[in-house]
């Protein structure tokens, strides 16, 4: 017999995972001194958001939302909600362009200062 509170945690484990990942990402961004590592923290936050969206669109036992004609067409098919996945495709493109820009800036900063440690850069400025 599983306690009620524990069951609550278990049933929404996908949301808890994304919450924990967001926290890990934010922690990384605050604590790490290296500019690239800070950005990796941000990528974790973004990925956690993507997981949140994709898991909320999922239906247990659902199939891809493609209408099948002919003899294989079942009558009561449960479809997965396709919209969150489509939204996340857009969000991935956005995250990708942010990452590309951040890495470009990081390369330029390294060329200028010779280091990516944020504290060292502050000393050099």
């Amino acid at each position, binding site marked *: 017999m599983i306690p009620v509170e524990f069951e609550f945690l278990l049933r929404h484990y996908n949301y808890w995972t994304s919450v924990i990942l*967001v926290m890990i990402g*934010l922690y990384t*961004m605050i604590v790490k001194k290296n*500019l690239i590592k*800070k*950005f990796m923290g*941000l990528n974790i*936050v*973004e990925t956690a*958001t993507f997981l*949140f*969206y994709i898991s*909320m669109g999922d239906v247990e036992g659902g199939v891809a939302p493609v209408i099948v004609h002919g003899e294989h067409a079942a009558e009561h098919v449960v479809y997965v909600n396709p*919209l*969150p996945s489509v*939204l996340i495709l*857009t*969000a991935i493109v*956005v995250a990708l*362009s*942010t990452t590309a*820009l*951040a890495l470009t*800036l*990081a390369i*330029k*900063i390294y060329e*200028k*200062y010779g280091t990516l440690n944020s504290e060292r*850069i502050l000393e050099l*400025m």
Partner: protein
Amino acid sequence: MNVLFHLPIIVILIPLTAAYLMPLVGHKWKKWCNSLAVVALALSFVASLVLARLVLVNGPMHYYMAGFMPPWGIELVVDYLGAYMCVVISFITLLVALYSKEYITKELSEQRRPQYYTLLLLLTGSMMGASITGDLFNLFVCFEILSISSYALVSISGEGKALLAGYKYLLIGAIASSFLLLGIGHLYISTGTLNMADMFVRLPPLYSSWTVLAALALLIVGLSIKTALFPLHVWLPDAYTNAPCSVPVLSTLVIKVGAVAIIRLLFNIFQPSFVINTIPMTAALSYIAAIAIIVASLFAISQTDIKRMLAYSSVCHVAYVILGIGVGTELGLTGGMLHIINHAVTKGCLFFCAGAIIYKTGTRNIREFGGLGRKMPVTMGAFTLAALSMVGIPPTNGFMSKFYIALAAMTAGRPECAIVILLSSLLNAIYFIRVINITYFGIPEEEIEIDEAPPTMLYPIVMLAACCLILGFGVELPLTILRPAAQVLLGV
């Protein structure tokens, strides 16, 4: 009639199309880059004016992208606020493009100029898109385009400090974007729709749900970072100080678009009665804004770098807009939205003047401005006029919006907000009159021969300075569209 029907999408598409053409033009015919940007933005300004006229005559316009009906398709809703923002954004960006012709030659190398204009046009298109979209996810996408182009614009000069400022802005801005995305996800989970009008109808039964409240909190925090509301403003001073002077003018528009998104969230997605009475979100925002106004003014007084001083002044003035919204009455909302155009015009003029001074003298330190009043009479005259408008001296536009917000605070029974506005006007006076004093009465340390900035830089300056007076005397002009805007938003 057919063209007018498609006008909402045309207004956005003109700058975006020009942005795609720009790298090609920059590759082949470098000197036509500026002309292309100016022509595109002038077209977009004319289209915005026609759009505003249409909205004033016929009421809000709805445009369904690719003909899909909402809530399935993406909807553009040009209401009074959206049309007003389109006019403001295209007008200011047009002047920025004019001003950039000469100014940018000193700041950026020839290879970077096409990139600069590409980003400028992308930013314009996405800002207008964010102002008139009726779809929550589309709002997020527009916000991302405008954020990424402003990160790149901040660090476009390629100097070390500018790169770091851009990186800092990017890290903070990307957290805001993730929060926005999470908030939108929460709202989608609860309502099953992304269309704002549809959400407005479906949300009221769910107001007690924690998911919806979490969504409101995430979206407000995310948008506050984009708007640079006081405790979350840390990216702004560095970004403004290290970017070329035309970028902060654009960035004042960026933070205004954040404020417009807050208006949309509070009044178009949630219901006014919920955010004003049930959860006193507007009251909380107005108190945060009041603290922001005082603290940012104090920070501005202690600056010696003119761009940094103007940056803190921007933090202060965007808080006025939020304060106006936070009062939560029709008058307060009108005053807050009126301050959007007034601050864009005045701060644009001030940054253009600062750019002209830096272009001619190469110094940003206020203490070295001695004697500039005689050498650059037109620039410093415009600077003085705009500074008086920032302080809120009566015939200028700054007075009008401050007066409206203060009046709204008084009638809403919040005299403390009116006191904050009065106090901040005094603090504004301290730091602006210091600059005016040095430029007119200060003695230069060494005599340097300088004259006025080139005409393509002077025209935008004079035009914006004239706007400070025109919008002061003719305050009815923006109010004809803002009064119905406030009534529609509050559902009166």
